[in-house]
């Protein structure tokens, strides 16, 4: 976790520096079908995070040796724009991005019925346009929606959420400052329908009890975020409903 400091992250009233309670999420907004060429796409704003996701496929996996004869491979690529952070980030994948891409691919693979599309790849491009802590789970949450938009069969949408520890207290969904000066961060993703944990990372310092609180906080929030994913998809299809006969103007 971040550097030690005397900065107080929770005030006397128990509120955090952005006014949230310990179990409160930042505002989340999801939009579906935001790109023209991609087979599926989604855009998510999660606090100050702005993340765009495009899905291509299933399409023939290339290079050929990456093909799996019995199932599709999920190829997620997490990328941060150079201007997404305070100090310009050198473009291109660094070691952090490679690791995040790997754990996101693995998480999505649990949900997608990959055995229906042998020898193909499903490519998931996650572009972080602005970063504000929690980009990997914001990206993963939007990626699930984009996969549905691309018509890819899944057992359920994967939902990401994070909990952490600031000023010695377990809280939901760290923002940038809390991430920098907090004591622990636990990004996690679950499949709500089956209650499976598909992504789990942690750094910092949690006692066993704190870890339990953190997992519980995230799981509760995941149900709420899962509904936002559904609503975003419904909104797209509602807007596409054909107009009633006779009302159409030529």
């Amino acid at each position, binding site marked *: 976790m971040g550097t030690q400091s005397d900065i107080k992250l929770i005030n006397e009233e128990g509120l955090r520096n952005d006014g949230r309670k310990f179990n409160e999420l930042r505002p989340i907004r999801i939009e579906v079908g935001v790109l023209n060429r991609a087979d599926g796409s989604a855009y998510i704003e999660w606090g100050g995070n702005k993340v765009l996701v495009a899905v291509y496929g299933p399409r023939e996996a290339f290079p050929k040796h990456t093909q799996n*004869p019995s199932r599709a491979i999920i190829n997620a690529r997490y990328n941060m724009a150079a201007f997404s952070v305070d100090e310009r980030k050198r473009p291109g994948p660094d070691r952090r991005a490679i690791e995040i891409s790997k*754990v996101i*691919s693995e998480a999505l693979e649990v949900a997608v019925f990959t055995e229906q599309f042998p020898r193909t790849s499903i490519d998931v491009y996650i572009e972080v346009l602005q970063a504000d802590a929690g980009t990997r789970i914001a990206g993963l949450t939007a990626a699930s929606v984009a996969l549905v938009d691309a018509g890819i069969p899944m057992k359920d949408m994967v939902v990401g959420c994070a909990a952490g520890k600031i000023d010695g207290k377990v809280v939901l969904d760290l923002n940038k400052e809390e991430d920098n000066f907090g004591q622990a961060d636990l990004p996690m993703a679950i499949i709500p329908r089956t209650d*499976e*944990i598909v992504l789990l990372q942690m750094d910092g310092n949690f006692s066993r009890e704190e870890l339990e609180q953190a997992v519980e906080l995230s799981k509760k929030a995941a149900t709420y975020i899962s509904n936002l994913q559904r609503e975003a998809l419904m909104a797209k299809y509602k807007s596409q409903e054909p107009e009633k006969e006779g009302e159409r103007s030529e």
Partner: protein
Amino acid sequence: MSKSADEIVYGLRREYLEKISAEGNRIDGRKFDETRQAVVNINFVPRAEGSAEVRLGDTRVLVGVKVEQGVPFPDTPNSGILTTNAEMLPMASPTFESGPPSEDAIELARVVDRGIRESKMIALDKLVIKEAEKVWVVFIDMHILDYDGNLIDACSLGAVAALLNAKVPASKIGAEDYPLPINHVPITITFAKIGSIMVADPNLEEEEVASARLSVATNENGDVVAMQKGLSGSITQQELFSAVDTSIKLGKDIRKRVLGR
């Protein structure tokens, strides 16, 4: 759809391991929460500031620590630097290839790094030579020599053992060499999920058929300092916490028995 011979053999092996684990057994006779014997040979490379060779069953890794002078990061002028790298040498396995580090090697190095960094094992604040100008940089380089599963634990143990015995070469700047300042001793335990069973310290055969992997690093106070789930399978909340409990228990044991701490 035709299947290759490899896939059929793999499927059979997976079925077999899932079957015996459901019956309470492991392929090499260990209990589910039993690690392989770890042998640590420190100062294998005396030219390095610290080193350790670790054998975990038939997995063998060599970790070298170099400590050199460098410029601190602008946002942490009062802190030394830690960097971790893993080389999955082609000599270690027919499946390892030469060339730039694979995704697996990057994940391995980052997971080991996270355990050491997040536990605050090294007192980086004591590695400052001149504020904002010169600090000690600790390089951990991990060479995989022989691959029989669970590189995360073998490398983590090797890195911790090497650091515990490393020195800061202050004689190079006209002072006296001193031991690398240490705060905590993290131990990482990795589990493989076979069928619905989590087994500690998987060997290669177990690792190959595992659906999910979970690594948990704990410190001497029994706090969790880093975790990483891997592979394209899932774990349940109950499996997570039972793995955390086992890690705390095994960590205490290894810290004492293997590292003498």
